[in-house]
């Protein structure tokens, strides 16, 4: 037999549970558009009779004690979270590289504005200027241009090479500053904040509160972190004392597939976090002097430290090659890798064509150009009149090919009228000129148009990797088309990555985001349930009223 006030207790638990459910439904609805919000559900279970199995327990038609709302849980799939973060890292990498490639493309191509008679035309800057040089040489052979016209046009082409090299350097500086300042600061900030959140969440869980909102914040930050570096998130059950267990979050660096590296590089562990630093110098990763014409960027990771963060542990031993994914990986490829220029002869290229590839390609083209013109401009006595030169380490003009780069190529200071050798025909006697013969110029024109050159990563033209074996004109035109092809294939990769990311995002949302229809039905459901519990309470109250006030009062009229 049940106790007198049992019913009320059951009713009260029902009303409370319904009220809790309605509140959670309201919470879901109001947060349906909050970024990173995961829908919540009340965890409820029915209560068994209180003296169940005890010595004085009642038997027969015993009844449970109503409903109990044990807690609130989130509906979230951690597997999908992991997938999202892995894909986010890939997306971050490809979109960073793509933007840099677009910036580089703008250096080499432009579009004329359309006039009324013709459509606008795509201009390949280097190809165009090269064509103009050949034109002016042709006009020169036809006596429609002077030697100073030829000199000015050569100067223009050299200065196009200079500007392109300078612009590539500017892009390099821009990327480095994005990397070493903005990105690294963001990542370090995220790691510190996540560690702080870890501490608060753990403390709250020990106290018994589920802090789901803080967990959402933490997940959001982990998502943002994953764009920069590939991460692997792990939850381990830890003993919090007094038989309680709480989750400890640790984050380590992951490879392309989201698996932690071995040995692991820990970024966050509970309330401890590490710190990234980015520097650059003239050494490669092993510490030996680098042979590249640009500084090498190094990423380093410190050991873990707790929240004061002022002193970090010793170097974790992270090397550039351990960063496999994320926009950090994109930056390292752009800044440190040079594709074919990193490859030994006969080997397959395994590195990406970063900024270094294009700046070194421009150097190779400049050297080929200077070599061709200088070799052709030889007087009948066999003296070379160098037309294009660079500067040596002392800042003096030099015609040595190893001193010529795209940045310093310029027309020789000795090039005044008469320096250009028109022909090697001797006259009939000392007073006879051969002004009308341009046989040497025709030779130069023919070489510029048709002579095959080998653009090879090594200055000698053969002991490195051959990038192009074709005419010099194809070399000049080829920079823009190579960039176009690289950008095009990166575009395809980036679009694919974004699509995949969106798909995973949808999958996640399918599990964790709020559906207003769903919540509307819940409102109906729980308010009906509340009505029903209240009705039941009223019924019990009436019963009790009858029992207490009206039972055993017969005959009192």
């Amino acid at each position, binding site marked *: 037999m049940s106790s007198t006030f049992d019913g009320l207790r059951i009713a009260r638990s029902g009303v409370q549970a319904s009220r809790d459910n309605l509140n959670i439904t309201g919470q879901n609805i109001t947060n349906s558009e909050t970024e990173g919000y995961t829908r919540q559900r009340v965890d409820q279970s029915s209560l068994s009779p209180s003296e169940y199995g005890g010595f004085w327990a009642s038997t027969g038609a015993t009844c449970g004690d109503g409903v109990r709302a044990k807690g609130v849980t989130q509906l979230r799939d951690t597997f999908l979270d992991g997938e999202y973060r892995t894909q986010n890292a890939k997306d971050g990498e490809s979109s960073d590289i793509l933007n840099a490639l677009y910036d580089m493309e703008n250096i080499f*191509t432009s579009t004329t504005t359309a006039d009324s008679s013709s459509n606008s035309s795509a201009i390949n800057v280097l190809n165009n200027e090269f064509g103009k040089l050949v034109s002016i040489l042709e*006009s020169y052979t036809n006596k429609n241009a002077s030697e100073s016209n030829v000199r000015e046009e050569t100067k223009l082409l050299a200065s196009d090479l200079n500007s392109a090299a300078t612009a590539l350097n500017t892009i390099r500086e821009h990327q480095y500053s994005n990397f070493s300042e903005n990105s690294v600061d963001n990542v370090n900030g995220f790691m510190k904040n996540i560690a702080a959140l870890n501490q608060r969440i753990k403390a709250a869980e020990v106290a018994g509160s589920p802090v789901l909102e803080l967990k959402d914040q933490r997940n959001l930050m982990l998502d943002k972190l994953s764009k920069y570096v590939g991460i692997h998130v792990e939850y381990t059950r830890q003993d919090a004392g007094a038989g309680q267990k709480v989750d400890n979050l640790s984050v380590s660096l992951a490879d392309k597939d989201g698996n932690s590296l071995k040995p692991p590089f820990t970024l966050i562990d509970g309330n401890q976090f590490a710190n990234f630093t980015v520097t650059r110098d003239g050494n490669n990763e092993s510490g030996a002097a680098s042979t590249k014409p640009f500084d090498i960027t190094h990423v380093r990771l410190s050991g873990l430290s707790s929240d004061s963060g002022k002193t970090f542990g010793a170097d974790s031993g992270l090397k550039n090659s351990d960063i496999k994914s994320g926009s950090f990986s994109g930056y390292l490829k752009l800044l440190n890798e040079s594709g074919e220029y990193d490859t030994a002869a006969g080997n397959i290229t395994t590195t990406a064509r970063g900024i270094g590839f294009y700046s070194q390609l421009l150097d190779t083209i400049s050297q080929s150009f200077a070599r061709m013109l200088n070799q052709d401009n030889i007087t009948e006595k066999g003296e070379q009149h160098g037309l294009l030169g660079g500067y040596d380490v002392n800042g003096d003009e030099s015609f040595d090919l190893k001193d010529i780069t795209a940045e310093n190529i310029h027309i020789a200071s000795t090039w005044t009228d008469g320096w250009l050798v028109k022909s090697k025909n001797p006259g009939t006697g000392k007073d006879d000129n051969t002004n009308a013969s341009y046989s040497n110029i025709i030779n130069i024109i023919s070489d510029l148009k048709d002579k095959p050159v080998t653009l090879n990563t090594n200055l000698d033209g053969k002991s490195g990797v051959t990038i192009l074996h074709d005419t010099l004109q194809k070399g000049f*035109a080829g920079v823009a088309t190579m960039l176009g*092809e690289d950008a095009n294939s990166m575009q395809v990769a980036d679009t694919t990555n974004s699509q995949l990311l969106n798909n995973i995002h949808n999958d996640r949302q399918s599990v964790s985001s709020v559906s207003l229809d769903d919540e509307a039905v819940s409102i109906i459901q729980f308010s009906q349930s509340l009505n029903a519990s209240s009705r039941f309470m009223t019924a019990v109250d009436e019963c009790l009223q009858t029992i207490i006030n009206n039972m055993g009062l017969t005959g009192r009229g």
Partner: protein
Amino acid sequence: MRITTHMMMNNYRNDVEDAFSSMNKALQHTIDYRKFERPSDDPVAASQTFDVHWMTGLNNDYTANVTDQKATITTAEKVLQHVDKLLTNADTTDTLKAVNGDINSNNREVLANQLTDIRNEIVSQMNSMYSGNYLFGGSNDSDPPFQMKGDQLYYRGINVDTGKLEDGSKPKITLDQLTNEKTYVDIGLGIKVNKDGSINAQSAFDSAMPGISYIGYGVDADGNPKNVCSLLTKISNALKSSSNEDTLSTSELNNIQSYISTFRNSHDDLRNGQSAVGQKLQFLDSTSNYLTDVNLNLASKDNEVEFLSPYDAIESFYSQSYCYSSSLKVGNQVLQQSLMDYLK
């Protein structure tokens, strides 16, 4: 799969943005009809476009060269026609044909002077210029090729009869070599340079017209000079130096007739030279026609590789903008509804 409001909003937003950006791109195409704004949009089309631009540039260079050469050589042709006329004038019934035994000393004087005048005019014609450059100097176009020193004619400082310089020494190049002098111009025949640095004759246009190949040089089998000016000088001197008052002696007459016979041979040589110049002009004409055709082909190729047909561009724009408008209309309906709208 459970679809939530948030997912629908998100996907809808992404899809509308995609539709808008496709429409924008199609709009861009209708403005400039270009297949690509930058090489990464269409690397294959870009690479072909740059090739076409390069070849168009070269073709324009060749066309300019041909036009200039045609003008120069047409002028030279006219000069040679004039010289031809002068030589013909020298051989009429009033002049050389009038030389026979009966010609008296007065007439001889007049005839000699006439011949000298004709000779001087020939020299002056052969020193004609076009556009500031001498036409018949071979590879020297900045100094007058022919000079009379006394009654000796020099070409490029070399005596046309003896082949020696004025001081009697040997020149660095002989007259024979000078007639073969070449000044090449690139007109798109595919320049080939031989191993010794000289240019393959078939691969470029030779614009050189050394004057001595037209008016002759050196001596013939009889020891007579072959140059028409030298011959006129010789004939004129022979007429003036005769001792007889009324007639020429037989030996004097024979001498003069021998010169006249060589003169007529040299006149024939000039005519051969003229037809060679005529052939050069014909060649330039046919090259010019060919280059015009190539230009047209390149223009049409550029159209093909760089530009879209207006029909394609406009049709694409309309279908994209239709997609965009319909996605906007549909969105209006899809996004509003939820169960919330139906609850009291």
